[in-house]
């Protein structure tokens, strides 16, 4: 029996059923049913996430780690239970390695200020890629200003792929920290992060991976990757805003000074001397976002109930379909044609500025992101002020791709 079962093909991914879990998808926009193609900016939340948050707020809320009363215990259990859920999701060794943050941006800033700033000196180098989101550029520029260290940038090619050889050449014993996206938000390029991590670590550098766009589209196992630090946002993973995760290897986190000071991150405080709390709370000053943590844990349950691999395969089908459909339109140029991409399709339309395109698609109910996608250096590399970007999530369907194509036809009519 067991053998038979394992031979059976997996059930086809039922995106129509998935859509019913996302009430917001029933919204009408400008007289058209919403076609939501902006999940790379922020995904929508399914009912189980909305309910988990409501349930926490309705039945379990009080401050955490502070009271002996029942609700405080319930809140603490919910919050710390969420941490364990997250540990399992990314296969970290211990919950001491899971720090709750507001999102990817805060995770990167925490490492910049608490890891890099105290250690780096003039002459040291931080290495990033030309594909990074501003959140993985600016915090390092700040560290460079603060310490006198230097920011190096590994280049990309016209397909939007990291030039691995160039990256390897830039590594040297002065490279103290490498910070790279796992998946580019502007182009969808998947970077060879395992290779990057191994190479960087062989030079003694510590590696931070910006996983904001990777976690929703692939199974991430931080131990298998060997990442020193890995960070992502809840709101791109069908979870709430204002919650994210910073994973760090325990030895590294333990050796770091706290970032922010306040309640929860201390054991004892006197005016003479304060002792800091243990990991992970040492890095969680102040009352945390408990309902966000609970919502993110529920989002992980949801994603695993659909199957991370099944979602990824479904999105790949849509990406390939959309790529093929748009490639047939003579006015469309696809920006970013890496061999390995996830869920993101960036493009321009000849004679129509992306901003106008965004307005016209919106009039048809189609939500895409237009602009520089917080990756101005990527736009500059391609000589563009902006692109339009369609991105796919578990709830998108072939129909959404057809609506996009149809709306692009409308844009061509308006600008005929």
């Amino acid at each position, binding site marked *: 029996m067991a053998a038979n079962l394992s031979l059976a093909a997996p059930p086809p991914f039922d995106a129509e059923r998935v859509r019913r879990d996302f009430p917001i998808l029933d919204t009408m926009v400008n007289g058209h049913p919403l076609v939501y193609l902006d999940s790379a900016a922020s995904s929508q939340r399914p009912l189980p996430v909305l309910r988990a948050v409501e349930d926490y707020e309705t039945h379990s809320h009080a401050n955490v780690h502070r009271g002996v009363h029942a609700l405080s215990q319930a809140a603490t259990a919910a919050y710390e239970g969420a941490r364990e859920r997250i540990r399992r999701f990314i296969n970290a060794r211990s919950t001491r390695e899971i720090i709750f943050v507001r999102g990817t941006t805060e995770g990167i800033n925490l490492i910049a200020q608490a890891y890099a700033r105290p250690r780096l000196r003039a002459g040291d180098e931080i290495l990033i890629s030309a594909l990074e989101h501003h959140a993985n550029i600016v915090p390092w520029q700040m560290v460079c200003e603060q310490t006198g260290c230097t920011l190096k940038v590994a280049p990309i090619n016209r397909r939007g792929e990291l030039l691995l050889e160039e990256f390897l050449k830039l590594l040297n014993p002065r490279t103290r920290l490498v910070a790279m996206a796992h998946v580019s938000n502007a182009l969808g390029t998947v970077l060879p992060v395992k290779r990057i991590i191994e190479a960087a670590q062989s030079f003694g550098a510590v590696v931070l991976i910006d996983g904001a766009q990777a976690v929703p589209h692939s199974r991430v196992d931080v131990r298998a990757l060997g990442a020193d630090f890995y960070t992502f946002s809840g709101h791109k993973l069908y979870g709430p805003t204002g919650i994210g995760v910073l994973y760090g290897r325990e030895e590294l986190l333990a050796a770091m000074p706290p970032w922010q000071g306040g309640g929860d991150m201390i054991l004892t405080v006197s005016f003479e001397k304060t002792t800091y709390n243990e990991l992970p709370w040492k890095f969680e000053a102040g009352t945390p976002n408990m309902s966000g943590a609970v919502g993110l844990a529920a989002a992980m349950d949801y994603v695993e109930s659909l199957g991370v691999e099944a979602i990824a395969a479904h999105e790949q089908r849509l990406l390939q379909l959309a790529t093929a459909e748009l490639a047939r339109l003579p006015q469309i140029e696809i920006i970013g044609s890496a061999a390995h991409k996830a869920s993101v399709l960036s493009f321009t339309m000849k004679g129509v*500025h*992306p*901003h*106008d395109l965004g*307005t016209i698609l919106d009039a048809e109910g189609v939500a895409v992101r237009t602009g*520089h996608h917080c990756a101005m250096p990527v*736009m500059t590399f391609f000589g563009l*002020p902006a692109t339009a970007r369609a991105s796919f999530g578990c709830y998108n369907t072939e129909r959404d791709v057809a609506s996009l194509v149809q709306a692009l036809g409308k844009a061509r009519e*308006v*600008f005929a």
Partner: protein
Amino acid sequence: MDLKELYRDVILDHNRHPRNFGRIEPADGRAEGHNPLCGDRLSVFVVLDGERVADIRFEGRGCAISTASASLMTEAVKGKDRTAIRALFDKVHALLTHPDAAPDGALGKLAALAGVREFPVRVKCASLCWHTLNAALEHGAATISTE
């Protein structure tokens, strides 16, 4: 929401064939405008004859609304003095932001921008060139931003 109201023929025409497009060097005043939201950038160059704008050009790239608005603006302000230009800007501003301001007769072709107010996120596209012109007239040389 009516796209035809936004993308009127005048707008599409001025987007496709922007008037007074290019640089003036040397110029008596120049300024660069930037709309970080969409990456639009434009530069405005003016030659003054006393209080009067004797010549004006603009350069840059942007969406249809920002390009057409800049093109229409250069036509409208050429030959006018600062006071008249300020008064015209106030009328354009009212047209872009007041829900039912009737287009003022003095606006001429600029009235084609009336459709923009239905699209609040696009108002900055249309007003960028005016803020940039203001900067060019006031400070001689400046960079301004819509944010």
